């Protein structure tokens, strides 16, 4: 607790705001141009948090403008809780991804759990019922006890929250690289389904309408979270304080049901609704007022509080979980109260909408804040930071071809690399089937998950893809590949890509090299989003991800949703019959820079990432989609980490069948990671029709067989591997690493 708040003059003189992240230039600008006086303690705190990158995107906004965010299907782009895309039949799909990297580094279980809780609130605050969760996790190498602890706790946190909420976790990715060791990336995505008529926005309009607080009580959670937690840890005599946010999925389940009942059955009572997420009450309330060009007046004594003696600053900045802010029509407050009380939830009128555009707070009968709403939201000084190409990129090694003496052993070794190996031991702790609509879940391969849309023939395919290695060697191509890989994943399931969400995980933007990486990555992603007509409809930016003073690899995570017109026509990523023809869509080139093979053989990544013709690649993928939709394909699996060899192996897993393929290239090409490829199998009877659709974009490489083995012939080698044994090696790798004792 802050015992004695500083006076405005003391704030000006002692500059505590510098520690809160506000610069002197910003402080002076606020005093001289926005409020024309010195802000008091509470107001300074509000400015500091609302002008942070996390809330204002002041550094990344100039770059985010590069993203396309509209097309004929987009109903809601960035700026609300989540983006919305029309899927026909008066229905819409809603989705967003969010990072919870820093909270998860401090307290991995609760950090991951509350990340899931936050993204779910974003979805249901739009009026949609969440139907799926996805994750994208990046950890250090599994070679020490702390990383194993982080993995166990993060995975348990995601499952603990999602399982209890009854939302299936249907897809995701988990990768491992040294650069994430002290700074794991924990990105969560949720997808919701709604009737178009139920779309809600976070708006507080209409003078005299009421601001209502619902859900959990406010504590000091999350106020300067990381600093509290680490100082606590060191102190000899444990302090009795903690700022770690603890999630309560049970409360959130009740909150979700109550909010959806309000929106779906009593929309006429409601003006707007918004999650209290980052920067809690202040950001939700001032954004709701800003979007409606209104003012708002709130009495903080009415806010339900879990702890005693909280200051106005603490009440406003608290990040206690499972809370929502509503704007309710005057006269309906009793109805709304009754509805939420039925769910045993706190529900209180804490303020009202005004017409004077001011943001006014009272606490203990004193006015503690009286500033223009826009000064917290729209007037934030945007900052395009200096940028410079990273030094390392000028010293990249010349590309050389890896020499593979024993391709069979290389494939076995690759299948046991943690990034490639089966994640079943982790994903089977997620409830992937609740809601009884999961057509494809997370346990088999890392393709997209599929949820059928009840009452229609449609399905939704969804995936998360982030690969920092290409971004480290070439941020622009890394950005392109992230989007392309996501598209290949959903297309392999027979889905037309609709749109994307993202989490941009980068280092400190004040480092010109990091800012350059951010700029280049966004530019690369934007190019592919235009090419594929998949606008960016929501997302978040997570900066300052550093490990021992080194920035993480630039890791843009792309979450994509695709629409399947007839879910009965979707294909398995495992082969389904013998004597089918095996094709690769897309050309395979010598792409080894940043590959899993390079990392495995040399222990690091280096070299130039080759440019690729993305018009050509996108057009080939579109043809592959047509072939799946025309039911010419019996199985499909995309090619990513580990290349074609890994894809072929994964396709025979969980079957009794095999493959016999021959490549007119050297064995190292089996492990090249040329982006945007898919392996498809086709019945001999459909060969002509298939080749008519794909033309030169698909190359036949062999056929499926009735024996459970993978036979491969290249120009310089030939090998045969038993499917059962190979699958065991792929499945046992991570459990084995997680059990080791060092």
């Amino acid at each position, binding site marked *: 607790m802050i015992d004695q708040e500083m006076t405005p003059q003391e704030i000006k003189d002692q500059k505590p705001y510098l520690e809160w992240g506000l610069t002197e230039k910003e402080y002076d600008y606020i005093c001289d141009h926005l409020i024309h006086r010195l802000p008091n303690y509470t107001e300074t705190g509000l400015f500091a948090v609302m002008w942070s990158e996390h809330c204002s995107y002041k550094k990344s906004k100039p770059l985010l403008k590069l993203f396309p965010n509209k097309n004929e299907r987009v109903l809601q782009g960035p700026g609300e809780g989540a983006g919305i895309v029309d899927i026909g039949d008066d229905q819409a799909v809603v989705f967003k991804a969010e990072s919870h990297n820093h909270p998860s580094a401090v307290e991995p279980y609760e950090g991951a759990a509350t990340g899931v809780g936050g993204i779910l609130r974003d979805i249901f605050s739009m009026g949609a019922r969440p139907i799926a969760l996805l994750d994208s996790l990046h950890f250090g190498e599994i070679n020490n006890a702390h990383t194993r602890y982080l993995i166990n706790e993060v995975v348990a946190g995601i*499952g*603990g929250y999602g*399982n209890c909420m009854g939302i299936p976790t249907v897809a995701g990715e988990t990768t491992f690289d040294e650069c994430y060791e002290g700074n794991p990336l924990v990105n969560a995505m949720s997808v919701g389904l709604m009737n178009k008529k139920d779309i809600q926005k976070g708006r507080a309009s209409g003078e005299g309408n009421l601001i209502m607080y619902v859900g959990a009580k406010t504590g000091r959670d999350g106020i300067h979270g990381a600093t509290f937690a680490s100082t606590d840890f060191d102190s000899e005599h444990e302090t009795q304080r903690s700022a770690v946010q603890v999630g309560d999925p049970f409360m959130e*389940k009740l909150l979700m049901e109550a909010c959806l009942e309000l929106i779906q059955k009593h929309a006429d009572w409601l003006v707007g609704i918004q999650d209290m997420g980052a920067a809690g009450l202040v950001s939700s309330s001032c954004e709701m007022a800003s979007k409606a060009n209104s003012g708002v007046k709130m009495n903080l004594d009415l806010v339900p509080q879990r702890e005693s003696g909280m200051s106005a600053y603490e009440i406003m900045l608290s990040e206690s979980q499972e809370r929502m802010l509503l704007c309710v029509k005057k006269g309906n407050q009793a109805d709304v109260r009754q509805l939420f009380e039925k769910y045993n939830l706190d529900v209180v009128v804490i303020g009202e909408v005004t017409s004077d555009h001011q943001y006014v707070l009272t606490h203990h009968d004193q006015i503690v804040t009286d500033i223009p709403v826009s000064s917290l939201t729209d007037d934030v000084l945007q900052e395009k930071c200096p940028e410079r190409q990273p030094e390392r990129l000028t010293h990249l090694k010349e590309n050389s071809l890896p020499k593979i003496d024993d391709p069979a052993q290389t494939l076995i070794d690759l299948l046991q690399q943690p990034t490639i190996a089966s994640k079943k031991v982790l994903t*089977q*702790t997620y*409830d992937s*089937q*609740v809601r*009884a609509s999961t057509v494809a879940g997370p346990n088999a391969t890392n393709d997209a998950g599929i949820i059928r849309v009840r009452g229609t023939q449609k399905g939704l395919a969804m995936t998360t893809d982030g690969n920092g290695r290409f971004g480290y060697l070439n941020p622009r191509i890394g950005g392109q590949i992230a989007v392309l890989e996501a598209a290949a994943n959903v297309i392999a399931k027979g889905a037309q890509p609709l749109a994307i969400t993202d989490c941009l995980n980068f280092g400190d933007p004040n480092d010109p090299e990091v800012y350059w990486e951010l700029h280049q990555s966004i530019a690369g992603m934007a190019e592919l989003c235009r090419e594929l007509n998949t606008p960016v409809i929501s997302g978040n930016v997570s900066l300052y991800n550093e490990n021992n003073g080194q920035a993480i690899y630039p890791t843009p995570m792309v979450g994509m949703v695709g629409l399947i017109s007839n879910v009965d026509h979707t294909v398995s990523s495992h082969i389904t019959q013998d004597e089918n023809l095996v094709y690769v869509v897309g050309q395979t080139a010598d792409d080894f820079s940043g590959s899993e093979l390079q990392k495995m053989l040399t222990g690091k990544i280096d070299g130039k990432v080759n440019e690729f013709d993305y018009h050509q690649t996108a057009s080939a993928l579109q043809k592959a989609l047509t072939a799946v939709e025309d039911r010419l394909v019996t199985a499909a699996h995309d090619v990513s980490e580990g290349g074609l060899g890994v894809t072929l192996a994964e396709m025979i897993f969980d079957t009794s069948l095999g493959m016999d393929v021959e490549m007119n290239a050297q064995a190292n090409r089996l492990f090249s990671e040329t982006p945007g490829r898919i392996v498809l199998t086709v019945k001999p009877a459909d060969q002509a029709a298939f080749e008519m659709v794909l033309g030169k974009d698909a190359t036949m490489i062999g056929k499926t067989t009735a024996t459970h083995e993978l036979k491969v012939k290249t120009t310089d080698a030939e090998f045969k591997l038993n499917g059962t044994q190979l699958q065991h090696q792929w499945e046992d790798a991570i459990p084995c690493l997680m059990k080791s004792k060092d």
Partner: protein
Amino acid sequence: MRVAIIVFPGSNCDSDLHYVLENLCHVSAKYVPSTATNLDGFDAVLLPGGFSYGDYLRCGAIAALTPIMGAVRQFADSGKPVIGICNGFQILTEAHLLPGVLKKNDNLKFICRPVALQVENNGTPFTTKYVKDEKIHLPIAHSDGNFYADPATVDELEQNHQIVFRYVDQNPNGSVNNIAGICNRRGNVVGMMPHPERASEKIVGNNEGFKVFQSLLSLKH
């Protein structure tokens, strides 16, 4: 036939049961909140899976004390069919409508995957459409599915044919005698950890659980 689906705060498989009954079985299914006190007019009662009261204290413990459970007890005592699935099974044991307890899985983790089962008793209202000893696959999704009862109680269950489903090939959670589902002495109250409602249509993987509901529908009323 009119079926009641009890909704406890935190239940999350209630809508899946409702969908299977209304859309696939075409019977009337009504949600009944845990605050209700009577079940008049219903022919069967279903306790869904989920995390009632967040699984706080013990799974099912707080739900077992809710007002509706008095009515469920009366309903069961009258010989009418009651089934608890997953958390519903946990609630029935906490309410002493079924013996034993569901402990934490022996690997201490939540497990979601398909398991192989054998139908041991096809005489309950929920299993008549299965052949005795039929081998089926159903998904499980729980962290506390490790059935335990003292040896005398287990012997009694075995002797009275109260084991309804048993895990075969592999026991996923460490349950005594590989028990996956049981019934009361009279046979009208069934509890099971696997989720038949998630395996009632081919499109979601398999439909080998649908016979649980078809069995119920075939009861004469």
